[in-house]
């Protein structure tokens, strides 16, 4: 190394004249600078702790710097100790003001960018939100009561056989660009939903009955006759999904085959017209969407004031949950688009107690966490576990062995209720206490497992089957969703107590969905099957064995006898117009489900949401988007 070979120059005594006189020169210059006698200057030959020497010699340059830094640090310390001033005024619980006043702007934090401005092209969360704000539908499902409300359709009558509806449209309604709204727009929107060029599958699939499209005829500008291919009990409810878009804007694009670009992100914002309460006024990619009031919105409140109350809604794109929370607490945003996680509850509770934030307990979620095995025929063909891994008894044993209270305590911090099926108590109309609720009974679980051949044959506390294969399987879930990670760990620990070993496999989101959709490459999965409407007819994709959302056995060519039974019951349930009969049939479905347990559900968490304290007149809902589904009635407190 280079420096090793250098002789130790600085250790040699400086016996030459140049060095000694140099030192003397330095000392004398120093003495002259500080006006101290040369003899005293010698005292500064050695090193003195520099602030002191600076002080003593009057070289205060660095000292000034030191004092400036000390001052800055004290300022920072004082600022940190200062608590941010409370933002809102009123108390944290009331949301309704006597007479909401017009005006004000709402700042919302959203997670992702929209992929399009047209709900026909994309179904992601932000595009859906844009759709809520700028477009309107024929009917609206009230997300609180889950009942159908007339919206653009003023009233409708059902025909005698129940398969067609004559709908009277609201008169004197215009689009945001002034063009009048007529039944031609309804016809056009429905045709668009089915048109493959227009993006078909996104909306069109939800608008089919028995696989066949719905027909709409417009005899006059304010009437539409809708014909279902078969009797459809939910009726007009199905139209909550269909935004009514202006024919005059989009017809040309559809004919030319450029519909997917028509309202895409590169489109000019003035081309986008709708019947919703707001219009998009600006879009800064990656940053925010700004919505301005639609002056031609058709709704008025009870006292005749034209809705919406808000002047503007600003959606800021903030991908990180922590940053969203901090903005809400600091008053830099008014609400989060989605619910609050249980982990963040305590911070928000403190902010709510200080009056800065309003915290809402929205009740139990509609969609519980779902755990299912891969029940596809032949999925475990070459696997030594094929004798027992797809058996009903295994799943019943798991349902008995897992303590649902422990699950709730760990996964949602105790906030929630245990559930025993896909329908939670939040679904007031369809939940039934008649559906059997499995108790927590590990002994009975062991008996069930013994009945399919899984017993502890070698005394090590773990179960094996007759051939010695250990009772062991893997649960695949999504990395990054902490609720699922905790849930999988709870299931693993509970099953260890009855001798079943579980491996938790955390996969990346897209990879996991790929495996689940193809039905290959996983043993069991823990995931959430999103539900926005408790009406069972909207969930046919899940219940029917031919449905694509039939996750445990999707694309089943040969359904099991009980799956055929469910198919049959659901078909009858859709075509019966008698509400009581429908409920009875669905309870039957739930009972069959509980007996064979293709999906196990353990708990439904409580949903919390929060807004700043300046927002009033909110109608919170347990499904997303919690507040913005009724954006036209949100007001700012004065």
């Amino acid at each position, binding site marked *: 190394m280079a420096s090793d070979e250098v002789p130790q120059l600085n250790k040699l005594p400086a016996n030459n004249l140049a060095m000694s006189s140099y030192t003397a020169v330095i000392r004398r210059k120093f003495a002259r600078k500080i006006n101290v006698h040369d003899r005293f200057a010698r005292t500064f030959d050695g090193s003195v702790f520099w602030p002191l020497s600076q002080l003593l010699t009057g070289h205060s340059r660095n000292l000034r710097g030191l004092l400036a830094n000390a001052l800055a640090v004290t300022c920072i310390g004082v600022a940190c100790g200062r608590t941010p001033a409370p933002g809102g005024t009123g108390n944290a619980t009331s949301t309704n003001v006597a007479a909401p006043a017009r005006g004000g702007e709402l700042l919302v934090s959203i997670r992702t960018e929209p992929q399009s401005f047209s709900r026909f092209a994309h179904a992601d969360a932000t595009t859906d939100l844009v759709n809520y704000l700028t477009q309107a539908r024929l009917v609206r499902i009230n997300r609180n009561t889950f009942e159908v409300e007339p919206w653009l359709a003023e009233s409708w009558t059902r025909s005698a056989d129940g398969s067609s509806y004559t709908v009277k449209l609201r008169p004197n309604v215009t689009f945001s660009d002034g063009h009048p709204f007529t039944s031609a727009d309804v016809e056009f929107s429905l045709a668009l939903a089915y048109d493959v060029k227009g993006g078909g599958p996104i909306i069109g699939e939800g608008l089919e009955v028995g696989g066949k499209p719905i027909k709409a005829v417009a005899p006059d500008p304010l009437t539409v006759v809708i014909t279902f291919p078969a009797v459809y009990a939910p009726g007009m409810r199905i139209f909550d999904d269909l935004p009514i878009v202006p024919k005059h804007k989009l017809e040309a694009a559809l004919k030319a085959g450029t519909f997917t670009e028509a309202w895409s992100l590169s489109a000019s914002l003035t081309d986008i017209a709708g019947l919703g309460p707001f219009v998009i006024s600006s879009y800064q990619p990656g940053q925010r969407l700004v919505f301005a009031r639609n002056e031609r919105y058709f709704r008025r409140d009870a006292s005749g004031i034209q809705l919406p109350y808000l002047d503007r809604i600003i959606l800021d794109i903030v991908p990180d949950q922590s940053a969203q929370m901090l903005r809400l607490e600091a008053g830099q945003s008014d609400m989060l688009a989605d619910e609050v996680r249980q*982990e*963040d509850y305590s911070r928000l509770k403190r902010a709510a107690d200080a009056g800065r934030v309003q915290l809402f307990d929205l009740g139990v979620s509609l969609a519980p966490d779902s755990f299912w095995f891969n029940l596809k025929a032949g999925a475990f063909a070459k696997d030594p576990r094929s004798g027992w891994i797809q058996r009903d008894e295994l799943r019943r044993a798991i349902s008995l062995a897992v303590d649902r209270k422990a699950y709730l305590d760990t996964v949602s*911090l105790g906030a929630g209720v245990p559930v025993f099926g896909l329908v939670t108590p939040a679904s007031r109309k369809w939940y039934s206490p008649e559906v059997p609720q499995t108790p927590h009974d590990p002994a009975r679980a062991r008996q069930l497992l013994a009945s399919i051949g899984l017993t502890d044959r070698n005394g090590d506390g773990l179960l094996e089957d007759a051939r010695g294969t250990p009772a062991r399987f893997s649960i695949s879930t999504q990395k990054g969703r902490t609720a699922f990670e905790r849930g999988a760990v709870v299931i693993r620990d509970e099953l260890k107590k009855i001798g079943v070993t579980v491996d*938790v496999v955390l996969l990346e989101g897209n990879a996991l969905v790929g495996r689940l959709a193809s039905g290959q490459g996983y043993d069991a999965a823990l995931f959430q099957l999103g539900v926005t409407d408790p009406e069972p007819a909207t969930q046919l994709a899940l219940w029917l064995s031919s449905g694509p959302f039939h996750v445990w056995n999707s694309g089943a060519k040969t359904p099991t006898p009980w799956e055929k039974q469910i198919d049959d019951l659901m078909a009858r349930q859709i075509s019966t117009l008698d509400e009581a009969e429908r409920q009875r049939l669905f309870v039957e479905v739930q009972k069959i489900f509980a007996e064979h347990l293709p999906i196990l559900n353990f708990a439904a968490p409580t949903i919390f949401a929060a807004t700043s304290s300046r927002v009033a007149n909110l109608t919170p809902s347990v499904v997303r988007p919690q507040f913005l589904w009724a954006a036209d009635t949100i007001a700012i407190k004065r």
Partner: protein
Amino acid sequence: MSARRAGGAILVFTALATLGASVLAPHSIDARFAGLLNAPPTAIHVRDDAGNWRAPFIYPWKRVSQLEQQYEADRSAPIPLMWLTAGHLAQSSDDARAPLLLLGADSFGRDVFSRLLFGARLSLGLSLLAAVGALLIGGLAGGIAGYLGGTVDDAMMRASDFVLVLPAMYVALALRSMMPLQLPARTVFLLLTGIFAIIGSPFITRGVRAIVRTERTLDYAAAARSLGAGHVRVLTRHLLPATRGFMVVELTLLLPAFIVAEATLSYVGLGFPDTMASWGTMLQDASSISAFADFPWLLSPAAAMFIVVFALNLTLQRGSRGLHYERPM
């Protein structure tokens, strides 16, 4: 001199703590205490409320609010500690209800201190091995590139640029998909070591190349060659040692980066099974505002990382004499 000894002592202490984790740690990695999610650390007291001296004891945590995860010490029931029992150095005598949580509990209710000790094996082992691998790969590649120059130099630099710029996440995903659903920990360890060694090498390659390029023009290299040293000998015995200081700094830069990268790669599924703790995933769990503002003990792996890196730096850095010319008068 004393700084180096201090650094060495800390490293030896860390190594001993890591190796003796199963004795030092009061609990196993996945022992969960369901009623103590995010519980604060239990302080060890020797004087009770009345002022009497007692054998070391702890106060159990009583949960005040489940949803808000608030706990309060139950001062009416001091629990004494048991020493050198059941293969553990220290444990609470009522472990099921009032466990000894020296660094609190995480969001699953697991003891952070035990996971820290056991995770040290995994994280430190992986990062050290990967860092040494990166230093080797980078040192050789950079040395050869700097020594030979010309087209070889260009080609190797472009190769290292390629490695730097390729989206590692895709490669990791593709690799993961080719493997069975359950990965044994050893496979993951080897795979991650290899990936990190390759990904960490570009910075080292560049630095070593620059140093070697200038050093090869210096006199001592010419002297070595004139004495008949072959190219390899000149490179390894004379030129590469000049990069020692740079390599030491890079080591301290790479170690924490690899520990964090292990957690990032676990997002694409290339992580260790849940039954093994690692500092990277512990820190990731702590990376949310509710975590580190309200439960700062979850950040202990970061403190541990700092201590290890600091000690390494103290030990390996060769001090200089400083820039002064001593005036002996």
